């Protein structure tokens, strides 16, 4: 059913008994054309674009828990495309442009709010590197504007701009088109649209092995809900990519880390932009519910525990309160961590694996949410055609052999 004001009115007149589930919960069929492992944003988007862009509708999406319950439900909802290299700029800005039209396309309000992001410079060196960063973005055709100290103060009046501030703010830059989007809505919107095109979304279905055919080709998966055969399989499992790769018999240039975030109790509108301080490792935005959403840097040791280290939590809280002293009276409501797959150059991997028929979308590290439409679009392309999408061509596994890395560590925004 199409969501609209009229549908809402019709619902109101029928005591809201007219609503149907947004997607089906089918039993898995024994065979599909394509199976996607991982029901987060990237997997759901890949399923949707397979059906919409390529007409491949006999698709199963397998999710170990519930859709959007992994990193898609654990991020800080920020979207931006302020990267340094042309390859990344193209990929991430493609995603941001998709986000700009996504509510209409999916008939599902993803609550995109392009409130801008302000990156803070705390030293002369920060000012220099941010000027270089903003200029690189403009060279790539992406909006960026260098801000003076006063312009930063006007955008975020609660920032401590006093001369004796622990982390003095000397200036910064902004990408105005950046902002936030409702993370659950992105997952649910893609799920509903993919389901409407015939994709089977199968939750509580954990993959425990890959079926091998002639020539080592993958021909299906063993799951907790039985054997499912498919000639082409895509993996989009974020922090658990290495676990699935091991089942398929290869290794990845990936290390899994916990990345944590937290929200305060809700308060009235006080911060109408995203503020990021790469120098202190803290970034903050205010959700539409009013909570201050605070993100931290990585817990810098390998982990699959979705908890987050208390040492890192203390550090990010201290940095946030130094930037925004008035937040000191707020209470934290929740704290959590997601497991992210960090690669050496902080750029993703989207394409074939050493196993014929098996494709992967991984390596987004600390910034996968913003890239969901691009990750899904390019994974769907290689699954449907067997050829890499031109946006994904530079982001292949081979770059770790050839040495042609795309090192975005400086633009990842989060300390690695």
């Amino acid at each position, binding site marked *: 059913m199409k969501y609209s004001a009229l549908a809402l009115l019709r619902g109101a007149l029928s005591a809201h008994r007219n609503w149907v589930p947004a997607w089906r919960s089918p039993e898995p069929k024994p065979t599909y054309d394509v199976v996607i492992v991982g029901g987060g944003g990237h997997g759901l988007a890949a399923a949707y674009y397979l059906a919409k862009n390529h007409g491949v509708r006999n698709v199963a999406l397998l999710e170990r828990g519930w859709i959007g319950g992994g990193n898609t439900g654990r991020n800080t909802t920020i979207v931006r495309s302020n990267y340094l290299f042309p390859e990344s700029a193209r990929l991430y800005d493609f995603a941001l442009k998709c986000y700009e039209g996504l509510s209409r396309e999916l008939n599902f309000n993803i609550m995109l709010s392009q409130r801008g992001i302000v990156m803070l410079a705390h030293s002369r060196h920060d000012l220099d590197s941010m000027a270089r960063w903003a200029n690189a973005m403009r060279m790539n055709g992406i909006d960026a504007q260098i801000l003076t100290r006063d312009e930063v103060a006007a955008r975020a009046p609660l920032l401590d701009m006093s001369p004796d501030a622990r982390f003095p703010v000397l200036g910064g830059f902004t990408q105005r088109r950046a902002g936030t989007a409702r993370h659950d809505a992105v997952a649910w919107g893609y799920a509903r649209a993919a389901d409407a095109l015939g994709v089977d979304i199968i939750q509580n279905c954990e993959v425990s092995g890959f079926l091998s055919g002639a020539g080592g080709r993958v021909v299906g998966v063993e799951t907790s809900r039985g054997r499912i055969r498919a000639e082409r399989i895509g993996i989009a499992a974020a922090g658990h990519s290495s676990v699935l790769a091991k089942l398929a018999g290869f290794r990845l240039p990936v290390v899994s880390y916990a990345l944590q975030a937290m929200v305060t109790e809700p308060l009235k509108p006080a911060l109408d932009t995203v503020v990021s301080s790469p120098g202190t490792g803290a970034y903050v935005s205010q959700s539409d519910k009013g909570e201050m959403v605070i993100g931290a840097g990585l817990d810098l*040791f390998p*982990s699959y525990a979705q908890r987050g280290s208390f040492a890192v939590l203390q550090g990010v809280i201290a940095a946030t309160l130094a930037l925004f002293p008035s937040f000191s009276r707020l209470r934290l409501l929740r704290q959590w961590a997601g497991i992210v797959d960090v690669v050496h150059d902080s750029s993703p991997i989207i394409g074939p694996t050493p196993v014929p028929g098996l494709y992967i979308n991984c390596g987004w590290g600390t910034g996968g949410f913003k890239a969901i439409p691009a990750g899904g679009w390019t994974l769907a392309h290689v699954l449907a055609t067997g050829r890499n999408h031109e946006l994904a061509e530079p982001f292949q596994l081979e770059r770790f*052999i*050839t040495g042609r890395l795309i090192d975005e560590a400086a633009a990842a925004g989060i300390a690695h």
Partner: protein
Amino acid sequence: MMQLKCPWCGLRDESEFVCGGTTHLIRPDLSVTDATWGEYLFFRDNPRGVHLERWRHAYGCGQWFNVARHTVTHEVLSVYAMTDPPPAHS
């Protein structure tokens, strides 16, 4: 907060240490293929389970040591010297 037992200083908070990543990596001969070299530099087991890793007591004695630690529970199974052979946890 996670605590690690420095072989020299005893049990200390995680915030005194830095993790140096996977241990027991052996640099191949310089004449190997690009594939072997890339494998050595970048590709890791990244286990969901026991991980053999090196840590440094950076804000203490400054010494390196090896740790066998579970990546889900964060339980430390053993602490051993940099030159010791891998323990039989994994």
